[in-house]
């Protein structure tokens, strides 16, 4: 099975596909969409700043002028809270016991710029702070929530004090306890690292999945078109079927990579160009985790931990995974005799790729996901390993030796499937008539 001449088919297919209207239009439209989305991520929340500002700045006297407070905790009194709220610029009206709860509820419901805080105790459920705001919308849910927060913090300290704890011991008594769970000898992951470690693998696999679905269809269409237009007769006097399919699959693979890299570049440029505006969600999120520096550090740390070999391996897995599915798409294209049959013929392909994708991610959703049998299986099966291996490598759930074994299995399957596809393609390429069923393919190989 010679592949002599595949480079000419590769070059021609690539150049002609780039010239097609569908490629040009989809490239422009998706680029504009990506650019718009990345710009909006930074700009849109900024444009809605007046609404968001109230949340950031906490309760203001102008918005919440009066706080009604009923203390039915049995441990503190409403007067304990008066100074705290008055210092925040609000009028404080308090009562002890639940007697006035109904009255305050009615007053606040029909009032404006006031909040009613009800502190209660239940033997089964413990303490509860309920913040109620007026019907007229003069106080936002965030504002009333912030007032409840103030009451809650104050209650934490006051009850310890009432129970006899010295004032100087209270901060240490209410200090939060954080739980750190790491592999022995390794450092704790920051929030940014955790984010990157969970999002990056998903993005990698998602990109591969989208490429497989979108470009698999294109490969099948291209093969079917060559067959239905009878051009293949002319090609086969100059080259072999394997060269035709290899040239086409690699060309469309390269095209898809080029297009995807283009989208990513456009997205990064749009995001980076509007980030300095500091108006959007990203800047707020970054502010919450000690700024851009932490993310930059996390990215730097992530990539510094990977050897060039790891990065090359991920790239190889990506390419082998795409080729695996692309060859199958080419085979499906060869089984049809009419272009309009391609869509229905591709349905099993879509199901196959979805199963591969979910097999890679489903174990993560399970409680004991990290070491489950399904997860290990996903590493070794060639239709799921392209989705699961990159994330496993990035999150260090798999060592290099196991990775190499899984990649070798994927590579061997690629060779086997390429030979199978070439053999079937050779038999099917001149076939006309009904679409070949899956069960009939093996018969073609035997011939």
């Amino acid at each position, binding site marked *: 099975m010679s592949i002599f001449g595949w480079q*000419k088919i590769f070059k021609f297919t690539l150049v*002609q596909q780039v010239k097609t209207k569908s490629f040009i239009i989809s490239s422009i439209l998706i680029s504009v969409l990506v650019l718009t989305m990345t710009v909006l991520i930074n700009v849109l929340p900024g444009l809605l700043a007046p609404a968001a500002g109230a949340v950031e700045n906490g309760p203001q006297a102008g918005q919440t002028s009066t706080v009604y407070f009923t203390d039915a905790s049995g441990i503190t009194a409403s007067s304990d809270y008066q100074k705290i709220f008055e210092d925040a610029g609000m009028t404080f009206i308090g009562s002890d016991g639940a007697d006035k709860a109904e009255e305050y509820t009615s007053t606040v419901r029909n009032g404006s710029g006031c909040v009613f805080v009800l502190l209660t105790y239940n033997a089964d459920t413990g303490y509860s702070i309920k913040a109620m705001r007026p019907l007229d919308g003069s106080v936002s849910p965030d504002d009333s929530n912030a007032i409840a927060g103030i009451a809650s913090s104050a209650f934490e300290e006051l009850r310890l004090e009432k129970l006899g704890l010295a004032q100087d011991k209270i901060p240490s008594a209410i200090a939060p306890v954080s739980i750190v769970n790491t592999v022995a000898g390794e450092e704790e992951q920051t929030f940014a690292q955790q984010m990157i470690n969970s999002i990056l693998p998903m993005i990698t696999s998602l990109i591969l999945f989208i490429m497989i679905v979108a470009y698999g269809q294109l490969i099948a269409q291209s093969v079917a078109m060559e067959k239905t*237009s009878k051009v*293949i007769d*002319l090609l*086969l*006097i*100059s080259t072999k079927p394997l060269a035709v399919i290899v040239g086409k699959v690699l060309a469309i693979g390269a095209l898809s990579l080029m297009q995807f890299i283009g989208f990513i570049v456009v997205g990064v440029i749009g995001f980076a160009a509007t980030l300095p505006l500091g108006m959007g969600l990203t800047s707020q999120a970054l502010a919450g985790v000690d700024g851009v520096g932490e993310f930059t550090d996390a990215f730097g740390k992530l990539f510094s931990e990977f050897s060039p070999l790891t990065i090359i391996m991920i790239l190889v897995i990506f390419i082998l995974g795409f080729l695996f599915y692309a060859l199958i798409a080419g085979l499906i294209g060869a089984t049809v005799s009419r272009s309009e049959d391609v869509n229905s013929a591709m349905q099993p392909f879509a199901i196959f790729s979805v199963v591969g994708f979910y097999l890679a991610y489903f174990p993560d959703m399970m409680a004991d996901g990290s070491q489950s049998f399904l997860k290990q299986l996903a590493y070794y099966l060639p239709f799921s390993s392209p989705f699961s291996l990159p994330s496993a490598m990035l999150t260090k759930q798999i060592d290099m030796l196991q990775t190499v074994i899984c990649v070798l299995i994927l590579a061997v399957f690629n060779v086997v499937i390429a030979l199978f596809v070439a053999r079937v393609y050779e038999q099917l390429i*001149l076939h006309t008539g009904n679409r070949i069923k899956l069960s009939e393919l093996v018969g073609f190989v035997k011939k």
Partner: protein
Amino acid sequence: MALTVKNISKKYGEVTALSDLSFEMSKPGVYALLGTNGAGKSTAIRIILGMLSKDRGEVLWNGGPIQPIKEKIGYLAEERGLYPKYRVIDQLTYFGELRGMKKAEITTALNYWFDRMGLNAYRDKRADQLSKGNQQKVQLAAALISDPQLLVLDEPLSGLDPVNADLFKSIIYEQTAKNKYIIMSCHQMPVIEEFCSDLTILHHGKTVLQGDLNEIKKGYGRVNLEVKCDGDILPLAAECGLVPQEVTPDGVHFKIKDEQQAAALLKKAVDAGLTVVRYDLREPSLHEIFVEHITRADNAAKEGLA
């Protein structure tokens, strides 16, 4: 230089598509592969061109197994194929590159064929913007671009208007004059008679007639008589023992046993004072030979089944 086809056979499951086809082209010229639809012509051509594997037999070119990818071969397929959305110039350049031609060679060849076929106005058009005839010209250009030594033309004239048919014929004549080896499959028998010296007629994958066309015709002798008179010749023909095969406004067609029978009818017509407008004593046409052999093969098959 010679093309030798030896006992090539091909089966699809239980169906025999081609059975022991053998022929030889020891000198340049046009060889005809004829047959009804599904007779095995396209299968034979695809095997000769290496596109289809064979179950048995061999195809030799210059004494060695034919290697279509390496040889200078051109092919015009029966079912025309061009990329509908790609420019004509791009497609032909691609086909030239696949045949191993250099850029400059392709440019020279394309300039010649675009001029020769009147395609200059269409070089930058997409294939689906061309008429059927022009698409066919582009495909012939694709077959000829590498100046092939062996040219396979499957139904080259089907669907062409008379002007373009003449253009194609003149190109085939040119190629013949350049000592090319041409295999032609065509349902238009007069075209075959015009170009081919040797032929094979296939039916259900089997060879039912093969040889030099002139020799085959001579073997039949002049057994066809076409007569047109200004009066009724049928009573006179009956007196000579002749039964009309076909009566048309253009005359009456008789099958004769020998030329004396024809001479007797002519004498009777003259004696009867009829004006003989046309008197044509000829060998059977290829069309007649073709139909006769196919019918004979079908009848033999029916008898075999019975």
